């Protein structure tokens, strides 16, 4: 019974959202607003059950870790944002989170997104037994990266044989990269539609397997 009502409700809302493709209508609007409300309500529940209870309330109540009042108070300062007179207090938790997370992220990003990537671009163009596609690919990879980096060079005019030609090749390589993304995206978007059609035809109507 629960399952049946559930599937029917889901089907009705699915069709309600699709009706938007024809014209905006009240049922679509209802769905759109419900999503905002339900997801926020869900966040509240999960945040309480997964964070506040096991990490704040339980440790304070059972283990007497009163030091956790500090982050709790700091967190509460977010709420001052709603009181214009003391809204500036909300900058404190923001500053704490921003500062520390950027500090933590800095050396890690330096390693993962700069040094590792540089390391991976320094590669033997050819080694024994490498098929020709790979050799050509390696050359394209190294020169392409170089050219695209030239394109993102801002303090020199894009003129002359090095910066001019380099940036031109660079933007071509970048466009090929975007083309690849584009080509994959088509599949991604269609997949989402397929997922819903499978739901409607299989779970709801049961006309396909």
């Amino acid at each position: 019974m629960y399952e049946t009502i559930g599937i029917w409700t889901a089907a009705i809302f699915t069709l309600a959202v699709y009706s938007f493709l024809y014209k905006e209508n009240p049922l679509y609007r209802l769905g759109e607003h419900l999503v905002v409300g339900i997801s926020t309500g869900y966040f509240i529940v999960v945040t309480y059950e997964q964070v506040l209870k096991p990490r704040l309330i339980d440790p304070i109540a059972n283990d007497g870790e009163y030091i956790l009042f500090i982050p709790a108070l700091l967190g509460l300062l977010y709420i001052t944002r709603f009181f214009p007179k003391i809204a500036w207090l909300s900058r404190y938790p923001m500053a704490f989170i921003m500062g520390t997370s950027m500090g933590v992220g800095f050396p890690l990003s330096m390693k993962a997104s700069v040094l590792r990537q540089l390391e991976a671009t320094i590669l033997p163009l050819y080694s024994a037994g490498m098929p020709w596609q790979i050799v050509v690919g390696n050359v394209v990879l190294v020169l392409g990266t170089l050219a695209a980096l030239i394109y993102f060079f801002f303090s020199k005019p894009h003129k002359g044989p090095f910066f001019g030609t380099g940036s031109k090749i660079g933007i071509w390589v970048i466009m090929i990269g975007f083309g690849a993304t584009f080509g994959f995206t088509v599949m991604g978007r269609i997949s989402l539609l397929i997922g819903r059609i499978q739901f409607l035809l299989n779970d709801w109507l049961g006309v396909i397997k």
Partner: protein
Amino acid sequence: MTRILPLLLLILTALAAAQTVEQEQQPIPAEPEIAEASAEEVLDIPPGDISPLAGVDLTAPGDITVMDHPDDSGDRLIVSFSPGSEAEYADLFAAYIIYRRPAGGSDEEWTNVGVMPVGEGTQFVDGYDPDFPVNIGESYEYRVSALYLDETEVMGEPVIAQEVASGQWFHQGKVRVLVACLIFLGLIFYFFSRARMGATMYLRPIAGIEAIDEAIGRATEMGKPILYVPGLSDISDVATIASLTILGRVARKVAEYQTSLIVPNRDPIVYTVAEEAVKQAYLEAGRPDSYDPNSVFFLTQSQFAFVAGVNGIMMREKPATNFYLGMFWAESLILAETGSLSGAIQIAGTDAVTQLPFFITTCDYTLIGEELYAASAYLSREPMQMGSIKGLDSCKAILMVFITAGALMSIMDLLAGTQTLSWLKNIVTTQIVD
């Protein structure tokens, strides 16, 4: 000065390389990657009916040496030992079991702190198991036993650890990251100070940015509003920060031209920041009274409801120019497609690589990735922002030097049979360390 800089950098890099090559020679213990089997698991192997080991005199593993683990907080020890007669009975050998107790403790205090199945060598790192932590500065006693498949356990002699665990103040495996961070910091701050001293800095024109003035002018001529979407992300997103800077400049131009501006927001905090930026821009332009408090507003937090809302604005108000600058997700396509139908000039910019193709094919100008950040510097003409772009360019130049050198060395290695590429790669290779 500009010529000395690359030289300085080269020296620094060379120093880093020298330092790290040296450090490479230190023995870094191999850290086990595969999960260790528990003692019970090993013991569960059913014994044969008649043990082939019955009556054989087996030698236990011995020569235990315990060293402090380098580059840790003082919670690990490296236990090495020499094998006993396992090699002779390799087919029957199952695992080493490592026991530990506080130095001089009673027999009941022996704790099984680890099991090393066959094939994992004779070096054990103690302290990874959160249930049996190694305490800093505490003296321990170790013994190692060899366990055979028939459950024969040959116990070795206990040895008091030669070293105690101690914490280090610098992680030697992170030298390269440190050097990279320092070079980066140095370059950025060097150009900051140059910018502050008033050095003129060239920034190449960026097509999308050049078009901004023209687009605003066109909107003024047509008497239509300008739509500015500062992305859908929150304030900690770099793209949002860049977009808000650009918004300030656009709003100032808009205020000067007396055009109207529409800024819908998705994030409540970004909304308050954007509102302040626009208000400030009108003030700077000397027209605080033409600021319309309804021009910047919070629309909704739901991604698709936001898009539907913005689409509605585009259809009703028919803005002459649409700016989509900041962080966008799947909605980029819906926005840009609707905008292109309404006939507006569209200028987009984001660092969301997955959305850029759609902006490029549907908008008139698109700022690609870093161009968005550069644009905020380009428009604000703030010396610090310009300096930072310069600094980043010199970092990219260093990378380009490395990549070019790599390509050349690879060809040289191929032609002359040298090994220069691995040397170069070694300079930038960072270890996996914690």
